[in-house]
């Protein structure tokens, strides 16, 4: 496992604050693995955020170019799931 470096101290402090707020005390000997996982998740959420911003931009551009611009368009925020695969709620 990649060891936890000093450069990650800010991320460690951030996660400490989260767990403290949740009333969770992380045993010291388990911390490195937990922080490794948290660092990985931060990378994944950043990827999703960037993709969402890109999708929103594309959606706005598509709406502007559409002959029906101004009508309701399928933005990411407003889209409804069509019939097809996907979790059934």
């Amino acid at each position, binding site marked *: 496992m990649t060891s936890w470096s000093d450069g990650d101290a800010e991320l460690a402090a951030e996660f400490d604050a989260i767990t403290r707020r949740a009333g969770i005390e992380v045993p010291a000997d388990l911390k490195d693995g937990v922080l490794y*996982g*948290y660092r990985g998740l931060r990378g994944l*959420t950043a990827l999703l955020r960037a993709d969402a911003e890109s999708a929103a931009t594309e959606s706005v551009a598509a709406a502007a170019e559409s002959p029906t611009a101004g009508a309701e368009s399928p933005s*990411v925020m407003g*889209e409804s799931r069509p019939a097809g695969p*996907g*979790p*059934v*709620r």
Partner: protein
Amino acid sequence: MSETTAAPSATALHELSVAEAGALLRSGQLSSVELTRHALDRIARLDEALHSFILVTEQVALQRAAQADRDLRAGLDHGPMHGIPYALKDIIDAEGIPTTNASWLTVDRIADADSAIEQRLRAGGGVLLGKLTTFEFAVGGPSFDLPVPPARNPWSDEHVPSGSSSGAGTAVAAGLVRVAIASDTSGSIRGPAFHCGTAGLKPTYGRVSGRGAQPLSYTLDHFGPLAWTVADAAAALQVIAGGDPADPRAADVAVPDYLAELKRGVAGLRVAHSPAWYADDPATMPQIVARIEQALAVLADLGATVEQVELGDYELFNACGRVIFAAEAFATHERDLREHPRSFGRYTYQRVLPGAGIGAADLLRAYQTRQRLTRALQERVFDRFDVLVTACGQTTAARFADFGKDWPPPKLANDMQTIPFSVSGNPALSLPVGFAADGLPIGLQLVGRAFDEGTVLRTGAAIEAALGERTVRPDSTVRPADQLAPAEA
């Protein structure tokens, strides 16, 4: 069994398919008690080394087998699993029997009611052989700090059977049980099926009720069969599929006759394949790519049309699935993480706690991305094709020695390609297609439209029949656990 009948000898009873055993039961040439005793004998002989069962319910099994025999003699036939032994991953409840989740937290818990899955199998005349080894709470493993040892891969005791349905993969591949029912949140049925050389079906999300099964990730948990053949999996799905008013996730969608579907063949089927996710990746074993190409050629020879498609960005599917998994798994275990941190195995704790850091905005964004990816998958693939062929895993099983004290293991490649269809909820089958140069099993993944498990199963059955790999079993002389070099743990 009468000595004058043509029924197989006792040593081959575990090689009878569910349909073959059922036919012999119905004709009176075989009794469920004989079939069950044979399975119990094999478990007693082989499982000391394999560790695939946490609990063998011998008494329950023999009682149910006797009842199944009495019912058939009285003309009562409860369906395709009547009189057939099966086993449950030990996160699925059976009334009066422990569900340990392989965890110190629940090691003494006795289920006070049947899960929906067990209810259906029991009503369907099935014979419960016992509870199968799992990674702790279907997430943390392989671990040596749990109440039970990890299951061993029956093809090589130095290797992990994958997880989290580790016992299910091992037990089915070793011929201890023909059918196991397990859970799959990001690949926990398909991974062990791939690495142990069995069929493993993750049905559509909601196709099988999760009532009475330990949750992990509420919107990613799927339940389905691991079985020696595709037809065996179809028989089990026939019994466990269907709506459940007590589980809002379970979909009230008609359940077709899966065994009839298997006979339809693949002529005229429109098959998509997408090599970009695996064939261009140097981490993928060349034998896997070659076997997928061979399977596609088989389908084309049988009259299917095969066309290449683009599936989109794998990393987005992966990120979406892992963020949802992390947040929901943390929600499931939050209280125990706070109150009993030392009762979790190290891997479980280190895998689940990071989800505390997923905020509402990030989780909502992941759900939105999931909708978009699912819609794109529908448009790119399933609006035009009946089934998608892709990789399931990219390498053969990992070694126990690859796993250290803490998660994640240093050498573990992110080599499974199962999570995209956990995210989308489509049915996905892990199908064995032979062996790599190291002698370990490899497979491929077949994906279908939502609630169209029938097409996935019949495509799998066609490939399975053409490749003819299902007669090869692992060597049953796995070394006892105390003769193995200890893994790093």
